[in-house]
């Protein structure tokens, strides 16, 4: 894969970039702007990262800004925390989200709690970039989606973009945010393409986007599952049902207002994600929506998510465990049809 030269920050206009290129450009521009931004991770240096996201940055910024680490996730997340509380703005790459469990103590007992337990003394401008989900056949230890964990333990903001443009804009905002941000990429999105603004592209954290307007049912999703939501909306449209599809973009803080406005309009909601259903982020969404809009709802909120099984290897098993467009359509049918 070859990468176009990243655009100069002052250059106007949009270009088509891949998701990986958009993140690369977002990182690069922030590194140019702010010398305190440093990257840490495995194979991110001269190799440019196993998903190509940091390509060219080592050559441009050198080994003091792009730091290749040993395979010691707990150690280098801890080191990043030490950097963050002494004036740097580290961006850590955890190669797979599954390794969150290797670095869990630093992430959840330390990074997320660092500010609060110091009574506000510490500021922790630390971004963890990682990639989640399935790209087919990577099986149980390389296909998980762990956003619920980052949302459950206080202290983290959680971002999960679905398009290259959002990825760049949200990443730049995440790097400038003074809090720990879990920036959750999706491995199957890296080589998808989309329009990306050149130069500084700040999108506020905590703002959802109405990806497709509609009147009949609200379909809420984020990250790669947006493909399922939009795919289902197409199918439903052919049936005459207008789904309003919302891309959360940020899970924490959550743009509840946008969600509720839509649900109040449609009276029906379906939430879609690739993470496991049980105690997934969809449970939080369902709980919140029914708390706030119970009397506006015509049907129970439906969750479309992964089954309660590790992600299997074999293609057809994986398809059975992970949510598909058909499942979203079926859930929409349920909320539309089910009247007592």
């Amino acid at each position, binding site marked *: 894969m070859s990468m176009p030269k990243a655009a100069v920050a002052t250059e106007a206009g949009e270009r088509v970039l891949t998701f990986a290129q958009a993140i690369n450009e977002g990182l690069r521009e922030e590194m140019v702007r702010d010398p305190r931004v440093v990257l840490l991770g*495995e194979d991110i240096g001269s190799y440019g990262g196993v998903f190509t996201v940091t390509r060219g940055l080592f050559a441009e910024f050198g080994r003091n800004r792009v730091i290749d680490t040993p395979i*010691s996730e707990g150690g280098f997340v801890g080191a990043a925390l030490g950097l963050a509380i002494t004036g740097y703005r580290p961006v850590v790459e955890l190669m797979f989200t599954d390794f969150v469990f290797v670095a869990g103590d630093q992430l959840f007992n330390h990074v997320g709690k660092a500010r609060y337990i110091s009574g506000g003394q510490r500021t922790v401008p630390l971004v963890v970039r990682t990639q989640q989900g399935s790209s087919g056949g990577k099986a*149980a230890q390389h296909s998980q989606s762990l956003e619920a964990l980052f949302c459950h333990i206080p202290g983290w903001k959680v971002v999960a973009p679905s398009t290259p443009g959002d990825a760049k804009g949200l990443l730049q905002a995440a790097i400038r945010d003074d809090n720990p941000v879990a920036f959750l990429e999706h491995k199957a999105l890296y080589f998808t393409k989309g329009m990306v603004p050149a130069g500084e592209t700040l999108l506020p954290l905590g703002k959802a986007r109405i990806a497709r307007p509609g009147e009949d049912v609200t379909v809420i999703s984020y990250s790669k599952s947006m493909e399922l939501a939009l795919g289902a909306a197409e199918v439903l449209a052919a049936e005459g049902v207008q789904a309003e599809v919302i891309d959360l973009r940020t899970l924490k803080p959550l743009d509840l207002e946008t969600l509720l406005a839509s649900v109040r309009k449609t009276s029906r909601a379906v939430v879609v994600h690739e993470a496991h259903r049980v105690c997934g982020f969809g449970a939080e969404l369902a709980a919140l929506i029914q708390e706030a809009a119970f009397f506006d709802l015509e049907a129970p909120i439906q969750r479309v998510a992964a089954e309660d099984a590790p992600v299997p290897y074999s293609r057809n098993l994986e398809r059975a465990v992970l949510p598909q467009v058909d499942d979203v359509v079926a859930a929409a049918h349920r909320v539309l049809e089910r009247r007592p």
Partner: protein
Amino acid sequence: MATRPDLLDLYRMMVRIRRVEERLEALFRSGEAYGSLHLCIGQEATATGACAALRADDTITCTYRGHGAVLAKGVPVGAVLAELLGRETGCCRGRSGSMLLTDLSRGVIFSTGIVAAGIPIAVGAALSARLSGSDRVALTFFGDGAVNQGVFHEALNMAGLWKLPVILFCENNQYAEMTPTHEGTSIERLVDRGAAYRIPGVVVDGNDVEAVYDVTAAAVARARAGEGPTLIEATTYRLTGHMFGDTQPYRAKDEVESWKARDPLLVARSRLQERGVGADAVGRIEEEVEAEIDAALEAARAAPEPRAEEATQYVYA
């Protein structure tokens, strides 16, 4: 100590591993196998020599680069190929794929895609042997990059403290993914880390299958005798990329070529020749292995995929 196996048998196993790996690469290229693929081409002597020193009831844990070790421990080619084709007849019924191969009946108790994570599991298997009064041993394979991971340290500390019958087998193939070993740690010989746990260490030429057998057999004998763990560092090289798709910009062609000259299959073949084993015997092995793999692949292809309705089976007992 047991007598060293016939080199021809060791050679046959190495050829089997090499050919299976090559076949898997082709299957990936065609899309019949998928996900991720970490080949051990160039490292066949470590898996083969080490497993040859084990009994059937001894256990191993492997990494994602574990096809070789799994085969060397006796898992049939067909069970591995069927697994990577995602078939119900795979050793894990299509649930594991390449990285997580298990066959309890052959003592392959765990393969893991998480660096270093098999080491404490092997320590537990060794503790199990101790508690049950068995002289069984546990061997765990891991890479040079794994020695910088926390559980490596924790597991070796327990192994040393409890003098467990575990063989800690480090395949130093010079790289952790795209990063040279010596950019990950400041010590020269990884095996020197053993001293931090009072575990004796030994370095061996990992491309010499008999040398690997010998040091492993000695470590196994020590372990069976209740003398505790041994850390083995086998110096070797992976001749292919870290994983399917790795174009290896991070290393010089020269370097690869110099290791190709020490390909473990070459080393064994020239030693066979020295010992007067004829080219025909060696050639026959190639043919037999090819036939074995052809048959296994055919059977795997004919086998059913797991049923979608059973996708959530085996989560709970």
